[in-house]
């Protein structure tokens, strides 16, 4: 899952991106509205965390520009708490609204819910054969036994599970599982897929040569 955080307060941006990276998200950051808008339009993020009061372009302006082109889920994270602001934010196209100061676990839960809904899943628990994936606790069980996955491995499983039965290209996986600072030409993805297969089973992820990966 790849996120974009647009926040002008450097300390908060750092704390947020660290926490979300530790959850296995690939996180891109932007410190002003213009940069954030450019990135949001350039790349298909799984969700965007957007501040309201930003230099150059306000959060609302970014949201307006984004909504003209894309449906990326947006969570507004702002110090503007008035009801009128919440309404304006949601009406402009935000999918969720969280006021500062916030609890980081609430932010995580809301982001998870946003991503889950945008993938068309209403529940946390997804069962495929004898494999069960819980997007809330970020755990995978195989025939009732927990499987120990790293955060990045789990992210791969979750991304494919949420798009079960669909062919997901390598480019798409790179776009959603790696952030802007990682080298997309490496074989990191192949390594990760083979690690997951070792832990869950060789048939769990199917490779279609030249097309990508799929969980049937």
């Amino acid at each position: 899952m790849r996120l974009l955080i647009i926040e002008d307060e450097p300390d908060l941006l750092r704390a947020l991106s660290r926490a979300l990276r530790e959850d296995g998200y690939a996180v891109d950051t932007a410190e002003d509205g213009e940069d954030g808008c450019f990135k949001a339009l350039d790349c298909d993020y799984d969700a965007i965390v957007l501040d309201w009061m930003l230099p150059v372009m306000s959060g609302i302006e970014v949201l307006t520009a984004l909504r003209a082109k894309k449906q990326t889920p947006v969570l507004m994270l702002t110090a503007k708490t008035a009801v009128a602001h919440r309404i304006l934010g949601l009406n402009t196209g935000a999918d969720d609204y969280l006021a500062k100061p916030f609890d980081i676990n609430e932010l995580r839960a809301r982001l998870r819910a946003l991503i889950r809904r945008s993938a068309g899943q209403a529940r946390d628990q997804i069962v495929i054969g004898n494999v069960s994936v819980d997007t809330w606790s970020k755990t995978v069980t195989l025939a009732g036994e927990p499987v120990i996955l790293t955060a990045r491995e789990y992210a791969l499983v979750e991304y494919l599970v949420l798009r079960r039965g669909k062919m997901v290209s390598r480019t798409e996986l790179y776009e959603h599982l790696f952030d802007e600072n990682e080298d997309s030409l490496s074989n990191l993805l192949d390594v990760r897929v083979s690690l997951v297969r070792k832990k869950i089973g060789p048939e769990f992820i199917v490779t279609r040569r030249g097309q990508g990966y799929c969980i049937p």
Partner: protein
Amino acid sequence: MKLPPSSLRTRILLWHGALLACVLAAFGFTAHRLHWNGELVRLDRELDEPLSLLHRSLHGQNAREGNPPGPRSAPPVTYEMPKNLADQFVARGLEFSVWTRTGKNLDRSSSMPETTAMPPIDKAVPFVVQRRSHGNMREAYLITPPGECFLVATSMVNEQRSAARLGWWLLALGTGILGIGLLVDAWILRRAIQPVEDIISAAERISRGNLSTRIESTAGAELGRLTNVLNKTFASLDRTFTQQSRFTADVAHELRTPVSVLIAETQGILERERENDEYRETISTTLRSARRMSGLIESLLELAQIESGADLSRSTCDLASLSTEVLQSLQSTVEARRIVLEQKLEKASCEANAAQITQIIANLLTNAIQHNEPGGHVLIETGHSDAKALVRIENSGPGIPATDLPHVFERFYRTDTSRNRKTGGVGLGLAICKAIADTHGAALEACSLPGGITRFTLRMAR
């Protein structure tokens, strides 16, 4: 509309009603009296002729029977009402009675009440017609010098009835007028009191917390003035409360960001074991946030203190020498940022609080240096203009956009370009300057000049 018994309107209405009732009663009574007196005069005139007829007839008989008029010498022997006269009297509804000088009733008409006594003759002036009312009879009588008495009477029943009718009519009329008067009075009072009611309802709305309400303007000099004064008061209350609530909202907003940083950082770091470097970094971030909140609180307190007007001892101070002091303290910053500083300091004395004016100059100069590009230009000028002492500070640099210029003195207002938190500042510096200038009755203005020059001017009354 409800009228509480103690209301001003009720009392005025009651007094007016009582007054009107008295006046009407006096008029009614007078009218009734005049009417009654008129009736009596008419009756009396009607009785005059029969009385003289009666007198003449008796006088004639006396003369015939050799009873010369004399002081109570002897009573007339007989008296008999001539038949034709009696008939005439009866036909006209008149009664008569005749007494001798000894008081003996000589003759009287048949329907004359027996109770009718002979009028007292002692006080009577002879041959002058006297009148009296007796029961429902009006009587006229004449006493001769010897003491004989002739009395003619007529019934007043019709007159009394018409007088009573008049009385009732006057009473009804009076009551009607009183009622109409009270209604008109109530209407006038209501119109006169309406502004007061408006004021009361506006004050009630305000007391319920609707501070934007105003009293509708009303005519009338006294209440109009009161309305103006109250509206001004309401407006200033409204302004104060709006400022207060906006300020509270601003403070909450400004505190939210550092608190968010604190919570997010500490929550993140506490989730698992970390490297020492990570702990160090997090602790220094939290320290930075705490310092920012502390700075905000200090600035807020300072602002509150300035606005409360406390500690405003004034003395004669020279803006040029204050500026020199500030420049000395900022020397190192100027050098570090390689600012080209130009000074045109002329003596400019004014009455002011030296510490506060120093703060204005320091804040403006610090801004001029910090929001400047490295190697930029800063000009400080002091002097007199139009009987004002003034300080003018100009700096090159990115400049302030025209849309932001009117707002630079607002609390927590930051232009987009200056909103970078790395330069520090909580957005209260210029608000503090403005507050100080306001307590001094001085003018502080900002304007943009061509070429990205920003100019701040402080004008002090001398």
